[in-house]
């Protein structure tokens, strides 16, 4: 079945450094979504990418969707302590009776002040 791999599993940075997490799918994705989960919290939707080669920005966060719609990345410029949490990518699977998200394992980001 469809799988979404995400690396790295953990990343520890100094405040002000950049951070990137990468997602790779075994198959072409209809779209890819990114979520952030703060420690003790629930996943919160960040963004959805639909088009091949799409790039979207949210302040210090830049999201990219690969040309083949099989990979994606989230880049954070100049990390802050508020960026701490686990970032998940999730690919939309429209096969079968119901559409569902295929979740990556997540990248846990720690930021040293």
């Amino acid at each position, binding site marked *: 079945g469809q799988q979404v791999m995400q690396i790295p599993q953990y990343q520890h940075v100094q405040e002000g450094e950049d951070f990137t997490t990468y997602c790779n799918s075994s198959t072409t994705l209809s*779209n890819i*979504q990114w979520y952030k989960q703060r420690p003790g*919290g*629930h*996943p*919160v*939707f960040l963004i*959805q990418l639909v088009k091949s080669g799409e790039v979207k920005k949210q302040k210090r966060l830049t999201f990219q969707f690969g040309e083949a719609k099989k990979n994606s990345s989230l880049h954070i410029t100049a990390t802050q302590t508020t960026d701490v949490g686990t970032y*998940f990518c999730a690919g*939309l699977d429209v096969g079968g*009776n*119901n*559409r*569902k*998200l295929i*979740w*990556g*394992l*997540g990248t*846990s980001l720690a930021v040293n002040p």
Partner: protein
Amino acid sequence: SAVISQKPSRDICQRGTSLTIQCQVDSQVTMMFWYRQQPGQSLTLIATANQGSEATYESGFVIDKFPISRPNLTFSTLTVSNMSPEDSSIYLCSVELAGDYEQYFGPGTRLTVT
């Protein structure tokens, strides 16, 4: 977006008992999902609950163990039956709003089975 509440927020239960988790949404939604998440791990989809049809379960999850109700477009319940310590986890419900594919999550129910 949508506001989603879950009850209970946490519970400690004895093995062999059952717990029903409620999920309430502040707007009508077609698709609701139930997930399980172990601390520090990713989300595992248990089932998709659409109003007016039976829930669709993912591989490894069965209706006898995790019965789901979806009586209307704003409410769903997940029951964890005949619990064992392996069922200790965080259970999350989420919804997909019409026209969008993104999901919005409830705060979760932290279940501990002793």
